[in-house]
């Protein structure tokens, strides 16, 4: 379609005085992520979690730990080729991540309430539905997204040895420990890829339409020291204008 006069004039001005070279793009691998608290301010789980709904610098997502999306629900002046989707989590606390092995009575002795074990094995990680839509059209539907689209960001291990206290210490095994799958082979690949254009609006949600999943762990850090954050990572190729 031919350019209008105004477009041609703007184009000329931009090419001479603009801050970037219009029409010239560079591409690079890029991840966009968005983390939000699993519990709301009343410590209640939700039916719907909307990711990338607030941009970097907003009140909900004030820093890069939470998100790097430049515009709410959009890649802004960049286009994006979506190649992979990952669901992840983090706990904003500098303390024991999951199982507190030092507490024999409240944590180690029972896996009912310790750490993230019950939440991953019998809780929110075992349910939910992820949808990725552009405009009004749904392009991706993933059941149980924390299982089907795990972080898949490499192998890491936290190995613990526990000895019982007695005259002759013996190994005490069986401390419950689980985490989302991290093998790279488990990655959810969007194949064929999805291309999201400049300024195009998209929406990523995890829903629990069959009912909310309350957090189970009561001695875990998310329950006692702050929120558990769940997140969605979009991995792919960014196309942005050359400056």
């Amino acid at each position, binding site marked *: 379609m031919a350019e209008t006069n105004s477009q041609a004039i703007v184009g000329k001005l931009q090419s001479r005085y603009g801050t970037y070279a219009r029409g010239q793009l560079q591409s690079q691998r890029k991840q966009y992520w968005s983390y939000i608290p699993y519990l709301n301010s009343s410590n209640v789980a939700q039916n719907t979690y909307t990711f990338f709904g607030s941009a970097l610098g907003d009140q909900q997502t004030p820093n890069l730990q939470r998100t790097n999306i430049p515009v709410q629900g959009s890649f802004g002046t960049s286009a994006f080729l979506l190649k992979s989707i990952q669901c992840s989590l983090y706990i904003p606390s500098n303390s024991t991540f999951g199982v507190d092995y030092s507490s024999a009575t409240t944590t*180690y*002795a*029972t*896996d*009912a*309430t*310790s750490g993230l*074990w*019950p939440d*991953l*094995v*019998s*809780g*929110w*990680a*075992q*349910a*939910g*539905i992820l949808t990725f839509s552009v405009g009004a*059209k749904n*392009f*991706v*539907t*993933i*059941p*149980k997204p*924390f*299982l*089907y689209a*795990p972080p898949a960001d490499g192998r890491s*291990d*936290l190995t613990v040895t526990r000895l019982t206290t007695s005259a002759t210490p013996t190994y005490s*095994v*069986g*401390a*419950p*420990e*689980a*985490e*989302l*799958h*991290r*093998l790279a*082979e*488990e990655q959810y*690949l*969007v*194949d*064929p890829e*999805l291309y999201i254009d400049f300024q195009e609006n998209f929406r990523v949600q995890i*829903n*629990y*339409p*069959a*009912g*909310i*999943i*309350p957090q*189970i762990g009561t001695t875990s850090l998310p329950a006692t020291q702050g929120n558990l954050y769940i997140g969605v990572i979009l991995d792919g190729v960014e196309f942005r204008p050359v400056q």
Partner: protein
Amino acid sequence: MATESQQITQMIASRYGTANYGNLQVLKWQYYDYVRMTPSTGIVSQKLNFFSIPQGSLDPNSGIAKTLEETNLDRNGQFTYDYVITGIRTHLYVLPKARQNTTGAVNTSTTLTVGGVTGGGSGTGSLGASAGTMNFLEQLSGRGNLIVTFGQKRYFEINQPFKKCPIGAGVSIKSYGGGTPTTAGVNTNYWYSQSADTRDRYIVTPPLFVERDSIIDASIQFLDTDYNSTNYTLPNLNSVSGSFAFVNVGLCFDGFAIVPTQ
């Protein structure tokens, strides 16, 4: 060759329709369907039917309306889009605590998530007991046949589908146990899960193309002579009749949906 009425319909659709079937797009997609494994008796249904009940309709075993979490089937026994099947997964799993059986307090942490069994592994009271849910599921996973028919023709017959077509996804469990033995003794616990390794998925080669109007008849059937209520009843976890864990069975077709542009 299209009939005159088809030509007229296509012309109207191309001009005024909400979808453009002349311009198609390929998307990675899963069609999935989860059904409750047993009715309130706790006896595993001899034939578990999949892709027959769409969203919003009641699962006959659970009596609960299906949501998008259970299925993305919009039409009874038919896919919404033309579909290419490249892989098959089954999923045999215990429902999360919040959706568990209230009979016998199965939905409590004590029963559902504590690995330990009071008294050293010989009693009842948890999924992990020697006669508990996990051992039952392990035995069940060695049985059954997956049978899938499109139209009048059978396309898949897979023996032991829970083993041959695992989910290939899941939580990475490093260790399982804990529990508090109230008496001296060995605390034995069991944990069952299908393979979480995506390389173990059942790959459909060559892929199978399914037209969106094809009638699907997919089921997992337990056909051996050992099928009876003794062998196929979920164990009670507490001393209350009906205190079995709710278990869902899922069937998932991986592949590509061929979607009209809008």
